[in-house]
C-alpha cells in the first residue's frame, strides 16, 4: 500500500531541514507501540509459562516443543510429531486459500466490469464495492450468520420458492467460514485488479482480435498476463488477513473449525491460557505472513525493473 503513495505526483524537498522533527512523532509512537511489542513476542515465546496467565523469566523451548512434538502425558516418552496444532495451521491455510479463490472468482469479473465502464461512473462502482468494507467487521460477520442460519432469511427464501425441501445447514461448517472470510475481504481482491485492468492497453486486445483470437483466448493469453500483478496483489491481500482472522471462524465456524486466530486468542483468555505458547503460535503465523509478503515484494520489484 505504501507503494501507491510513492508513484508519480509532486515529491519535493521543501521541508528537507524539518523532516527529522516531522517524522519524530510517527517514529516514536510506532517504535514503542508497534515494532517493540511485535519484537517482544519473539522473546516471550522463549519464556516459561506461569500457570495463572503471564510468564516466568526463564529461557525455555517448551512452547515450540509443545507445538511440534508430542511427548506423552507425562513428557517422558519418545517425541512424536504433534499433529493437533499443525492441523489447525493447515486448516487455516486451506480455509484462507478457499476464501481467496472464491474472492478471485467473483472479484475478477467485478473488477474487470467496473474498469471497462465509462470514466465518469467508475468511481461510483468502486465506492459501492468498498462501502461494506468500512462497516464494522463484527457486525458484518454477525449479519452473515443471521442470514445463513437454519431458520434464517436465506433458507426461508429458498424454501418459499421451492428450491429446497428442508433448510440447508451452513452455519458451523467449513463453507460458512470460507463465506465469512470471502465477505470480509472481497474489496481487497477487487481494488488491485481494478487498478491493473484500468491501466491495461485495450489496443492489445484489438490486435489479438484482428489476428482472429477468440475473446476467451484474448482474455487468457493477453489480458491475464498483463494484469497478473494486480491479481497476485489481490490474492495476497485476501489470503494474509484471512489466515489470522478470528471473527469469521469463531462466529461462523464453531468448535470443529478452529483456526489459528482462535488458538492464539485462547492462550490469553483467563487463567487457563499459556502465554509463551500463544506467543510461539503468533511468531509462527507472523513468519508465514512475512515470508509471503517478502516473496511478493521481490517479485513486484523485479517486474517493475523489467518494465523499465
Amino acid at each position: 500500500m505504501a507503494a501507491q503513495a510513492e508513484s508519480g505526483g509532486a515529491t519535493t524537498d521543501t521541508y528537507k531541514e524539518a523532516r527529522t522533527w516531522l517524522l519524530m512523532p510517527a517514529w516514536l509512537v510506532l517504535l514503542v507501540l508497534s515494532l517493540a511489542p511485535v519484537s517482544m513476542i519473539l522473546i516471550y515465546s522463549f519464556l516459561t509459562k506461569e500457570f495463572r496467565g503471564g510468564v516466568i523469566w526463564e529461557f525455555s523451548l517448551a512452547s515450540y516443543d509443545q507445538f511440534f512434538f508430542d511427548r506423552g502425558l507425562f513428557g517422558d516418552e519418545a517425541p512424536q510429531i504433534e499433529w493437533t496444532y499443525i492441523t489447525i495451521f493447515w486448516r487455516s491455510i486451506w480455509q484462507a486459500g478457499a476464501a481467496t479463490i472464491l474472492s478471485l472468482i467473483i472479484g475478477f469479473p467485478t473488477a474487470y466490469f467496473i474498469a471497462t465502464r465509462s470514466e465518469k461512473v467508475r468511481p461510483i462502482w468502486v465506492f459501492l464495492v468498498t462501502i461494506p468494507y468500512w462497516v464494522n467487521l463484527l457486525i458484518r460477520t454477525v449479519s452473515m450468520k443471521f442470514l445463513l442460519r437454519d431458520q434464517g432469511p436465506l433458507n426461508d427464501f429458498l424454501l418459499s420458492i421451492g428450491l429446497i425441501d428442508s433448510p440447508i445447514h451452513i452455519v458451523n461448517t467449513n463453507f460458512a467460514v470460507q463465506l465469512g472470510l470471502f465477505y470480509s475481504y472481497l474489496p481487497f481482491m477487487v481494488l488491485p485488479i481494478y487498478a491493473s485492468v484500468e491501466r491495461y492497453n485495450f489496443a492489445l486486445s484489438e490486435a489479438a482480435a484482428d489476428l482472429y483470437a477468440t475473446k476467451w483466448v484474448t482474455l487468457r493469453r493477453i489480458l491475464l498476463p498483463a494484469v497478473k500483478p494486480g491479481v497476485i496483489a489481490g490474492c495476497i491481500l485476501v489470503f494474509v488477513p484471512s489466515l489470522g482472522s478470528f471473527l469469521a471462524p469463531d462466529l461462523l465456524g464453531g468448535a470443529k473449525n478452529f483456526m489459528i486466530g482462535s488458538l492464539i486468542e485462547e492462550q490469553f483468555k483467563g487463567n487457563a491460557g499459556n502465554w509463551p505458547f500463544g506467543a510461539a503460535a503468533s511468531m509462527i503465523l507472523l513468519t508465514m505472513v512475512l515470508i509471503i509478503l517478502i516473496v511478493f515484494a521481490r517479485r513486484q520489484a523485479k517486474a517493475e525493473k523489467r518494465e523499465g
Partner: protein
Amino acid sequence: MAQRKYDIKSYRGFGAMTILCLVVLYAPLVVVTIYSFNASNSITVWEGLSLRWYVDVFSGPESAKFKLAAWNSFVIAIIASTIATAIATLAATAIVRGGKFRLRTASIGLISLPLMVPEIVTAVATLIFFNYIGFDRGLLTIVLAHIAFCIPFAYLPIAARMQGIEDSYEQAAMDLYATKRQVFTRILLPLMAPGIISGYLLSFIVSLDDFIITNFVKGAGIETLPTAIFGAVKQGIKPNIMAISTMLLAVSIIMVTISYIVSKSDNTK
C-alpha cells in the same frame, strides 16, 4: 477498418457476476437492517414494522451497558484518530516534501507495519508489551493501541493528496518571502484539507470498528461497542443487537460517504 460485430471489451457474464458480487456484499446488511425494525420478540418470525428495539436500546434493561460502551467507543475513536491524523500529517510532509533521504523507505515501512502484521499478532504483541512495562489495562491502553494502528489509515489518503498537489503554490509563496512555517500553515494545510479530513474519518471508523486488539488490551469490565456486541452475540443474536448494529452501520456509511465526497472535491483548481 470494418466495425467488429462484437464489443472487444465486454465478456458475457461479467456484468451478472458484478451484480452477484454486490448482492452478496449488501444482502446481509440489508437483511439485518430490515429485521431490526421487526416487532416480534423472535428473530425468526416477522410481525410487522416497529421501533421497539430501538427504544429498547436507549431505555431497555441493557441500555446503561450499551450507552457506556458507546460513550467509550466514541471517546476512544475521537482521541485516537485526532492524534493519529496529526502524527500522519507531519510524517506525510516529511516523506512527500522532505526530498530523498536514507530513512525514507524505512519510515514508509514503519508506517505500514500495522497493516502488514496480522491483527491477532498485533493484539498479542500489545498485550505482552503493556504487561511487561507494568501498565494497568484500561481505557488508556486501548487509546494507545488504537493510535498505533490508526496511523497508516490516516497516512495513506493524506500522503496521496500531498502527492497530487503541485509545489508551484509553495514556490510562489516562498518567492514572496513567506517563511516555511507560513507556507505550511497557510498554503499546504488548506490544500491538504480534503486528504486530512478523509484520513481522519477513515482512522475514526477503523478505531470505532476494532474488536480484536481492543478485546486483548481492554481492562476487566471496560467495554467498547464491538466488545459489548460480541459478548451479547455469544448468547445468541437478539433483536436489540440488530438495532445497535443498524445504527453503527449507518454511522460508518455516513462517515465513509463524507470522506468520499470530500476527497473528490478538488480545491487546487
